[in-house]
């Protein structure tokens, strides 16, 4: 039931772009994105609802393809502070439990 994230890990140089994907086998109500730095709690980045609404981070963008049950997180001109593990979480209906994927580790090199 966990959504599938890809890639599992990414290494970039500062200033490069990255895309992290999340896909589900079930029709989704929403997709959440969170970032977790080592030793810290996951922190909310963005939520995307079916129908096109979204709320989130100023410098990070995401898309949600409802027909394919897929979402992508776009990290442009990456900064060192973007390093961490990114998780997507999915809800099948409004106010449902959030099921997270296995995460994507992102490492930014100076």
């Amino acid at each position, binding site marked *: 039931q966990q959504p599938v994230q890809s890639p599992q890990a990414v290494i970039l140089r500062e200033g490069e772009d990255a895309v992290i994907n999340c896909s589900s086998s079930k029709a989704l109500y*929403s997709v*959440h994105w969170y970032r977790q730095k080592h030793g810290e*709690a996951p922190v909310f980045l963005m*939520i995307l*609802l079916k129908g096109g609404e979204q*709320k989130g981070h100023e410098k990070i963008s995401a898309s949600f393809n409802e027909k394919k049950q897929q979402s992508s997180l776009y990290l442009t001109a990456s900064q060192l502070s973007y390093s961490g593990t990114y998780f997507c979480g999915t809800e099948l209906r409004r*106010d449902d*439990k*959030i099921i997270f994927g296995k*995460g994507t580790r992102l490492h930014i090199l100076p």
Partner: protein
Amino acid sequence: DVKVTQSSRYLVKRTGEKVFLECVQDMDHENMFWYRQDPGLGLRLIYFSYDVKMKEKGDIPEGYSVSREKKERFSLILESASTSQTSMYLCASSQTGGYTEAFFGQGTRLTVV
């Protein structure tokens, strides 16, 4: 500032002990969650509560139970701790309304020996 507080950062328990992990949120959120985090497996949902005394099993409820007697407090109970339950446990809460994020506690690193 919103806050989800877990009672312990680190806990060491013996096999067979009954273990209580406590979580308190101060945001009047309806939803509360318990996740388990293991390397390579991501965040796996143990239990979800959408109201006081209401709960729903997650993906890995075996060996765990929960209690939510008050809105702000959600407890995870390991009935008889086993070494396989050594893990990081994360509590989270969110508001209902269809458009709200989850806030996480700092986690409890539980070691069962």
